[in-house]
């Protein structure tokens, strides 16, 4: 675990000056700050990617640095920085009829929900903040904070669009959690553990040992998980909670400035979390696709980030390609297609394992 390494390092460095309690506290705070930095940098990159990918899909050029004086750098590379600055400097408005404490609490809660999921994400063989025994389960569990904070945000704004958005997001996330969880059960059945590191170690030895290629049922489970995850992070085609054409901006209607930025940041952070879970559970995590090829720990981080990054790219790609679903279609897809499919998958994988793998 990273915390142990940092603790040992700090003890070697400062062991004579400070008590071990302080050093333990410091070695827990350092990875947290690192995660915070990672989320910020990642958000800047993915916002730029979103702008550029959407532009290319729509046959535009996207942000470009042009003219003299203030401009967004070469290829518009500074555009996300400008966006972040704009959000930081904007006036923070709290509607007078809003429920003040909850209105202020909601953006923090949603960010904490996204933030604490990062603790259990494995970036490499030993690069994980907390190697939890129930890692996968933990990430599923703390994901529910997002639901609560979205309803709170919607309700506290005291605005009918916000309330509708909050309700829709809650209904959507609670429903899609079920097919997503049932698809991950397939992974747990094959790997026999909830520990994300052990799940990844189970997939050692090249691309054909990845869980997704284990048997014909798992690719279906992967697709069901990925689409459900898309719905859980409220991305198009499942962005009904904030559908601009109907609800202004859904639960975020009354939010401005930094508070709005927190919702934005958590959406992107949650995209990373669900993609990382998909990468770790189905695509071998930090394992190299070819046994023994580029499989040192540093390359592990590269593989993990690139697999996750690819899935995030697919999410962006889908967003700018597909139109939004209607509410009834959304629920039909979840309960009448994904749920039966996920259940059949579990039986299929169980039978396959008994017949062929034992």
């Amino acid at each position, binding site marked *: 675990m990273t915390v142990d390494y940092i603790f040992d390092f700090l003890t070697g460095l400062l062991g004579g000056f400070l008590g071990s309690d302080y050093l*333990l506290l410091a070695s827990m705070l350092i990875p947290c700050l690192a995660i915070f930095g990672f989320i910020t940098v990642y958000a800047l990159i993915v916002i730029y990617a979103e702008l550029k990918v959407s532009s290319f899909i729509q046959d535009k050029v996207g942000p470009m640095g042009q003219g003299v004086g203030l401009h967004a750098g070469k290829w518009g590379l500074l555009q996300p920085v400008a966006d972040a600055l704009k959000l930081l400097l904007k006036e923070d408005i709290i509607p007078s009829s809003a429920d003040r404490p*909850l209105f202020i609490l909601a953006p923090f809660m949603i960010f904490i929900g996204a933030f604490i999921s990062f603790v259990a994400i494995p970036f490499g063989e030993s690069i994980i903040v907390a190697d939890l025994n129930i890692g996968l389960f933990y990430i599923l*569990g703390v994901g529910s904070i997002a639901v*609560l904070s979205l309803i709170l945000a919607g309700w506290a704004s005291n605005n009918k669009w916000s309330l509708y958005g909050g309700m829709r997001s809650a209904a959507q996330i609670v429903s899609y959690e079920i097919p997503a969880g049932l698809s991950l059960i397939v992974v747990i059945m094959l790997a026999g553990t909830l520990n994300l590191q052990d799940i990844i170690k189970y997939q050692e030895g090249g691309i054909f040992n990845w869980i997704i290629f284990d048997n014909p049922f798992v690719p279906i489970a992967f697709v069901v998980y990925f689409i459900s995850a898309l719905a859980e992070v409220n991305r198009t085609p499942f962005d009904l909670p904030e559908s601009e054409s109907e609800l202004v901006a859904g639960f975020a209607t009354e939010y401005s400035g930094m508070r709005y930025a927190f919702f934005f940041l958590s959406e992107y952070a949650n995209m990373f979390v669900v993609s990382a879970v998909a990468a770790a559970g189905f695509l071998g995590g930090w394992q190299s696709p070819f046994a023994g090829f580029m499989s040192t720990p540093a390359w592990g981080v590269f593989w993990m980030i690139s697999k996750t990054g690819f899935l995030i790219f697919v999410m962006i790609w889908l967003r700018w390609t597909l139109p939004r679903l209607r509410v009834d279609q959304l629920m039909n897809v979840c309960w009448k297609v994904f749920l039966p499919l996920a259940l059949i998958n579990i039986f299929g994988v169980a039978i396959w394992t008994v017949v062929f793998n034992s």
Partner: protein
Amino acid sequence: MADIVFWVISALTVMSAAFVVLNNQLVYSAVALLFTLFGTAGLYVFLWADFIAGIQILVYVGGILVLVIFGIMLTNKIKSVRISHKSMQQGVGGVVIFWFFIFLFLALTKAPWVVTDAVEPVGTVRGIGVLLLTDYLLPFEIISVLLLGALIGAAVLSRGDS
């Protein structure tokens, strides 16, 4: 270090639980319940019960609390509802509380608490799974059928007479 964290979590749990009971606005009580449930999950972690802690968050925060807040927020003009927690029948209540306190105090001090070694178990998931499908298979199945019955019952009730 662990002691400090334990006391912080305990204080958070107890204080937020008190807030849930003493506050007279339903919405704030529901939000405070979130901290109580998380605190309880934290206490489970201190008992090395990692799986139970996960279940606590998944079921209570992700399921029950969401349902509670859903219900509260769909209620019209919830903020104008004043929940009274005025004391009534103070004499009888005082006597009951006194004897209940004595009872709890004695139960807590006299009970032969089993103290296990403070060694970290390798993880509780496997053990729970094996026990559920061997020794406790029948209760497990009965609970499943009960929950299924409740589910069907809820669906029938909410559909009405049509």
